[in-house]
């Protein structure tokens, strides 16, 4: 029963959610709405579970002084201080959470991490864009053209450069993206049906 009940729940809700998409009757859409709300609540619950798990794993490693144990304390203290300040003091503008933690700590740290990408990308592009084959030629030339066409210098070099780059994005790029998107969508439909009909069961987890 440990496996049969979850499979039955998935079968019923999965088929119902497909059915309701095609039947816009208020009675059906009310039930569908309730299921959507349950999904929202369960997702929020999963976030709490994630926080609890992060705390447990980090505490275990910090107390046992395993590798990088000092960073685990940073995680624990940051998590607790951020959580408590938000819950107790509120999250609106003017609060300690919003002004100090979010804008004076989190924002500059996150922006710094993102900004370092520029340096890594430049270094990686210098070494990785070596045209060792005709495919590499094609990739490097396209990359250079798009980079140039996306900045004002492109138009200074050739008036129609931005339009040419738009063509690259709208035609060859869109063709490839559509192929990927349609392939992924068909894969998602197939996986969804396999889960609904109990063929794909890996989501149930291992063991009995």
């Amino acid at each position, binding site marked *: 029963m440990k496996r049969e009940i979850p499979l039955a729940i998935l079968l019923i809700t999965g088929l119902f959610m497909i059915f309701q*998409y095609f039947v816009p009757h208020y009675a059906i*859409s009310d039930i569908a*709405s309730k299921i*959507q*709300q349950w*999904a*929202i609540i369960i*997702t*929020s619950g999963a*976030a709490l579970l994630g926080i609890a798990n992060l705390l447990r794993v980090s505490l275990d490693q910090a107390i046992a002084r395993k590798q990088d144990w000092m960073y685990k304390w940073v995680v624990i203290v940051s998590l607790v201080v951020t959580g408590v300040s938000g819950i107790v003091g509120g*999250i*609106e*503008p003017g609060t300690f959470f*919003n002004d100090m933690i*979010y*804008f004076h700590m*989190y*924002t500059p740290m*996150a*922006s710094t*991490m*993102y*900004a370092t990408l*520029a*340096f890594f*990308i*430049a*270094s990686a*592009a*210098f*070494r990785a*864009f*070596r*045209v060792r084959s005709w495919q590499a030629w094609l990739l*490097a030339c396209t*990359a*250079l053209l798009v*980079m*140039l066409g*996306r*900045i*004002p*210098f492109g*138009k*200074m070099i050739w008036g129609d450069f*931005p339009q040419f780059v*738009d063509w690259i*994005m*709208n035609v060859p*790029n*869109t063709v490839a*993206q*559509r192929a990927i*998107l349609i392939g992924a969508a068909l894969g998602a439909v197939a996986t969804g049906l396999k889960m609904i009909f109990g063929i794909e069961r890996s989501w149930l987890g291992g063991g009995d």
Partner: protein
Amino acid sequence: MSSVWTKINHLDKRWIYLFVLLAVALPLILPINLPLSPSGPVMSFYKAIESIPKGSIVLISNDYDPGSKAELYPMTEAVLYHLFKRNCRVVMLSLFPAGPPMSERAVARVTEDLPNLQYGTDFVNLGYKDGREAVLVEMGRSIRSAFPKDYRGIPYDSIALLKEVENYSSFALVISISVGYPGTKEYVQYAQGRFNLKLLAGAAAVSVPEYSAYYNSGQLSGMLTGISGAAEYEELIGRRALAAKAIDAQAIGHMVIILLIVLGNVAWFVTKGKKNHE
């Protein structure tokens, strides 16, 4: 001569970091004010906002966090300014937990220029809701059930602007400014066709190749593409601000990367030819 190319071929990455630092920092300190001309998707974005009736209600979903602030926050400010100048009213929300303070900051900055705007009548921040795609679909039925309170904890029914908001059909436009999942892609897949949204996107440059397919199919009615798109849009609305400053740095940064790629390849060919000759 060949030793020069060998040195370039094995250029220490710290030199590359220095070049990039100078290329990005100098234009921010000494702006060049490069000329800007709007691309097709940016022009469509602008026209879509210009085409809605004055006083319309618009939904902005700020689905990003401070990591993407440099690229996406200027769009949020510019879009808010344009909408408020057209007397539109704005409902903001976020599918990213760290998104709502970005909305608050943007609206605070824009209301410095347009001080007569009032919270609750001209704009509302509904905050963050977990649930990803489920939230998007639920909003198609009822925004109230997805967001019973706003970001400040005020009940939905106590906010004057929200008395006119039932579901997606209450909005003349939905604008998704996003960096990843959940974001524009999920709005297209779960809400645009199903609820017949007129959807605009502000996207990080890395997402643009993927979203171009949605723009070309008409599922997106307009698109701001990275910091260059934001700068072009600022030019269109006549308010050169954060993105216009950043585009100089990005343009010089791109040029440095292009030069490095070309130099790296020339050095590689020359040193490879020399090795083969030996």
